[in-house]
């Protein structure tokens, strides 16, 4: 049992992520348990909001992977989030009556953004675009998608039972069609339903986030993770070793879009709505702020950054229109004081204080 556990944990540990060893994993377990018991202590409304924070954290993970590990700053993560949400919604509206579940819609919410990213990524990376050009292009794509979706109020924009609905967002094509559903998973006679307003949905999102975090650690500590970092540190040098860096970039762009799409799917299921405002500048920039403030080079830092700032943002909204302004100010302060992010800097401080040495690198 022990060696098996070690081997599994070994795959999750590595020099590319902060934290390893028993103390870190025990602390992580405590944090996860904290989130697990949260619904016992807070109001139903807050549980619902926390589900949303965790969806944001998932979106932050998608940017952390591509930006923090591969050095590609995408300003269009909200676009993949939106595509995921719309794809989930359109498929769910169409298949719900026949299938009675959202299994295929859930998959579509990940696969459609990945396919879209594959096309965009192939165009960008085969053209060897880098840096600011990728950032601008991804943002422009998001804005274009938003512009397109906003003008779909005409009834001709109907896909089967789904009506795109322009500014008002996705809705059923006719009163006889079912409404946009929350998650319903079906397997044979078994049906599991997660209503977006329920505690069950909160737990489902928490599980998805924890699994995504573990998978993320496994991925970046694998050989593939080293290649991502090679591209981040010096893409030309990495290519001279015989790696087709364009394929590495396209593949990570797709994986990242898949994670963002999963977040968008959960978002659409959570609120049972999805509308074009998500493609605007602010949602795209917010993701960057979360990840930059938390720490772009570590998944846990990105998650905590997203949850922390989302929580703060909701608090600030009560005080008026200063939320985005304050978050921008926080970003500037963090960039000046702790350019690697608050959480990453704190983690390093803890590591140094307790002199927890990195375990020797294993092959």
């Amino acid at each position: 049992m022990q060696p098996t556990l070690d081997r599994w944990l070994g795959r999750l540990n590595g020099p590319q992520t902060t934290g390893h060893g028993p103390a870190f994993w025990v602390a992580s377990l405590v944090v996860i348990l904290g989130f697990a018991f949260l619904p016992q202590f807070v109001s139903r409304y807050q549980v619902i909001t926390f589900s949303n924070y965790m969806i944001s954290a998932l979106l932050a993970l998608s940017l952390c992977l591509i930006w923090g590990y591969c050095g590609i700053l995408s300003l269009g993560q909200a676009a993949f989030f939106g595509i995921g949400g719309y794809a989930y919604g359109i498929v769910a509206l169409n298949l719900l009556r026949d299938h009675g579940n959202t299994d295929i819609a859930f998959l579509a919410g990940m696969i459609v953004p990945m396919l879209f990213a594959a096309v965009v990524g192939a165009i960008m990376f085969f053209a060897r675009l880098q840096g600011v050009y990728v950032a601008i292009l991804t943002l422009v794509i998001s804005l274009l998608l938003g512009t397109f979706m906003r003008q779909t109020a005409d009834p001709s924009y109907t896909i089967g039972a789904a009506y795109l609905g322009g500014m008002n967002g996705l809705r059923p094509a006719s009163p006889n069609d079912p409404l946009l559903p929350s998650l319903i998973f079906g397997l044979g006679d078994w049906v599991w339903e997660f209503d977006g307003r329920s505690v069950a949905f909160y737990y489902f999102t928490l599980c998805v986030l924890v699994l995504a975090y573990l998978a993320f650690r496994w991925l970046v500590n694998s050989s593939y993770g080293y290649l991502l970092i090679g591209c981040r540190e010096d893409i030309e040098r990495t290519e001279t070793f015989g790696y087709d860096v364009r394929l590495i970039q396209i593949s990570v762009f797709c994986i990242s879009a898949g994670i963002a799409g999963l977040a968008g799917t959960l978002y659409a299921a959570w609120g049972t709505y999805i509308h074009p405002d998500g493609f605007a500048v602010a949602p795209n920039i917010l993701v960057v702020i979360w990840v930059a403030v938390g720490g772009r080079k570590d998944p846990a830092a990105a998650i905590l950054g997203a949850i922390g700032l989302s929580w703060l943002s909701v608090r600030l909204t009560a005080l008026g229109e200063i939320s985005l302004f304050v978050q921008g100010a926080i970003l500037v302060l963090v960039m000046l004081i702790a350019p690697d992010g608050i959480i990453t800097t704190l983690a390093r401080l803890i590591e140094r204080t307790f002199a927890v040495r990195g375990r020797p690198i294993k092959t």
Partner: protein
Amino acid sequence: MSSELLYPSGDTIVQVHDLHKDYGGVHAVKGLTMSVERSDIHCIIGPNGAGKSTFFKLLMGLERPTSGSIFYKGQDITKQPPFKRARLGLTVKFQNIRVYQDLTVFQNLFIPLRRHHSRSDILGQVTRLLAHMHLDGTENVPVRNLSHGQQQWLSIGMSLAVDPEVLLLDEPTAGMSVEETAETAKIVRNLSAQGITVMVIEHDMEFVRNLNSVTSVLHLGKLFAQGSFASIEANEDVRRIYLGTL
């Protein structure tokens, strides 16, 4: 040319023909034609701005030539991207070292080694390469804590990690002490003895003399002279271009 006399049974591995590179008005390489024999050490010298580094970038595919062609083992690789050339056995150590500054020595070697070796093989390979490059025991040292000379060696080691047939070294001894430079010459000769063709751009004439190999002089983007180092050293015209009167 004299290299043909030196190597009558020549086995050409790299050949460039009438190579031009024009950076929008700056003509860095201007009709360069030359060839390199298998397993040779081939030094390339020339005054600043002679087009030496551009030549290496063209060979590696990091820059596309304005015109002309590049042959590797008889195959036209002029339009191949860098990674394809690397897969054919051609790789480079850049002028400004280019190691992964944020990573440890082990991690720096892991990336190139992973191309040909399984994950379980890599530890042994790292040990072998580090011994070869006089960096034993530095596995877990962050690269930025290495001396300049050690970073040069590591960078050469990273290039060797992909088992190249032709290795381009752009100023391998820059920033090295006299002892380190002498050690580097030994390393280069050792590589050549293993059958690796090494092309070296150098400004340190002591180092080039020490290698005592075929030497090509580039001047104004063209091949100016070629031959043994002794013949180049004795060449009055070469002396003059270095002093700037030609």
